[in-house]
């Protein structure tokens, strides 16, 4: 077989590319890290901030938490609560819909998937503005539950695709066997299918959680008074001009999510994300 992989020059080119992209990915994270931990005299207070600061401090963190303790705590729990509601609804609706879709004919299934996918094309702002008026009337404005209802729109189609993908790997015979043994449609779903689909369900749960944790557009329009963490970071870095606080909070938001991403990396794959669209 003709292969360029064994060519030593190609090998060098690969590693040059690897080093280049690793550098590009890590550089902004390095900047966040030195702003959060560097002494302000070498970072935000300097006209030319040091690329390699020599003085480090925990005072930035201490001041951020001392000054905004209550607000931060409220924002943290609001983000946490919203993300869990979003992920729970996503699994509840998404799992059932995915299973139902796997039973439909290909043509009808594709139409419903197209409808779900089409909903994700509608800009969040276009949806958020009319919803905010409705939520004001319903008393859902500025609440975690209302925000979660809106953010659900972004994650629900993706959840359905992800779980459909994992249902495909469940052998059909198992379900048929359960039915022959006298299980009803729903019994077979919960006792036989669900346990086998757990890996897909868990990854869908984490991915929805992550997307809600990160979401900004709905949050800033539907919950501006008691903000979530991303909105709080935005307000801190612009309105109050407090870069150090924003950097400390940013690190707080980022670390759990990077850990989650690495755990999820097995599931965040192109062929999962495009499942149902590729046809």
């Amino acid at each position: 077989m003709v292969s360029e992989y064994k060519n030593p020059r190609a090998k060098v080119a690969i590693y040059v590319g690897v080093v280049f992209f690793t550098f590009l990915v890590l550089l902004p994270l390095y900047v966040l890290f030195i702003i959060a931990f560097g002494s302000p005299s070498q970072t935000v207070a300097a006209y030319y901030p040091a690329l390699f600061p020599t003085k480090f401090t925990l005072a930035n963190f201490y001041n951020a938490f001392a000054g905004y303790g209550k607000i931060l705590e409220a924002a943290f729990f609001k983000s946490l609560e919203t993300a869990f509601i979003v992920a729970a609804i996503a699994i509840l609706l998404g799992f059932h819909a995915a299973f139902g879709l796997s039973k439909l004919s290909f043509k009808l299934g594709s139409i419903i998937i197209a409808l779900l996918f089409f909903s994700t094309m509608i800009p969040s702002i276009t949806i958020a503005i009319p919803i905010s008026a409705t939520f004001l009337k319903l008393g859902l404005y500025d609440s975690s539950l209302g925000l979660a209802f809106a953010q659900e729109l972004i994650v629900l189609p993706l959840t359905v695709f992800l779980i459909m993908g994992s249902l495909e790997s469940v052998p059909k015979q198992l379900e048929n066997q359960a039915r022959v043994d006298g299980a009803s449609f729903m019994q077979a779903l919960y006792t036989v299918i669900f346990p086998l689909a757990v890996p897909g369900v868990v990854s869908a749960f984490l991915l929805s959680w992550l997307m809600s944790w990160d979401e900004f557009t709905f949050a800033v329009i539907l919950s501006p008074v008691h903000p979530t963490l991303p909105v709080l970071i935005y307000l801190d870095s612009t309105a109050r001009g407090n870069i150090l606080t924003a950097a400390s909070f940013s690190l707080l938001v980022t670390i759990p999510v990077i850990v989650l991403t690495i755990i999820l990396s097995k599931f965040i794959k192109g062929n999962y994300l495009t499942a149902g669209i590729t046809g």
Partner: protein
Amino acid sequence: MTKWRDSWTAYILILPAALYVLILAFIPAIEAVYYSFTNIKGGYTLFNYSFVLSVFGTRPIVNTFIVTVTALILQFVFAFALASLLAKPFKGRGAFSAIILIPFGVATIVTAVIFHNIFSTYGGYANSFLNIFGVKPLDWTGSFDTSLFALILADSWKNTPIVTLILLAGMTTISPDLYSQAMVDGANVIQRFFRITLPNMAGFIAIALMIRGISEFNIFAMALLLFPYQLLTTMTYSLYDTVNAHPAYAGATILLGFVLIFATLIMFYRTRYGVGHSNGK
């Protein structure tokens, strides 16, 4: 009998999710379009549109197009390079693909804050870097071109991973024999890319274009921090007011209109070029 009941159960299982999307996505979108043509008393008017156009002109539309196109080009160039790297076997590929995925997990607003610090005019790291080479500090947010550069760089840093994953999924569907054959026939790297890789991946490229293109149109959090010029999203947000939302509805409708036009164009590209190639013709 059971078959008939099963298929009804299937419909009932899908119904909540379908209704959910219908009530929370489609109805508000229709509301936005409807209210954009009414005034606060509920009468028909075109005033909201003429108001938006008289305040903002067509710049937000043009700017949105410029940002979308440049960001997509940058992301696809990087993603093709990365996917080609990841499609080859080499030591440390697993670790490399984990590193590449990190920005996907970094929140959009955090990315915006980081790049805001890199590209601030006073005390920014980009100017600090230029200073080493004796280059005068640049006013990054002061001109359209430099702030566009900062914005698309930040956006591409965050979103290239997702494009890479989709393109990589497409690349792995291409048989290596095709490349071997082309190499025997003397095709060089560039010829192989344009004659084999691109046409065989048209379907996947269309999906990545669709997903990213629509998000680019909706670029918002990053633009608030990094881009002092109006886009359709930031324009709509600045019009937003809980007392009289009608001008904001006009902005929201214009944004929706352009997203739908873009989506239709991509669908057209996909049915025209994508399907034939993915069948291996």
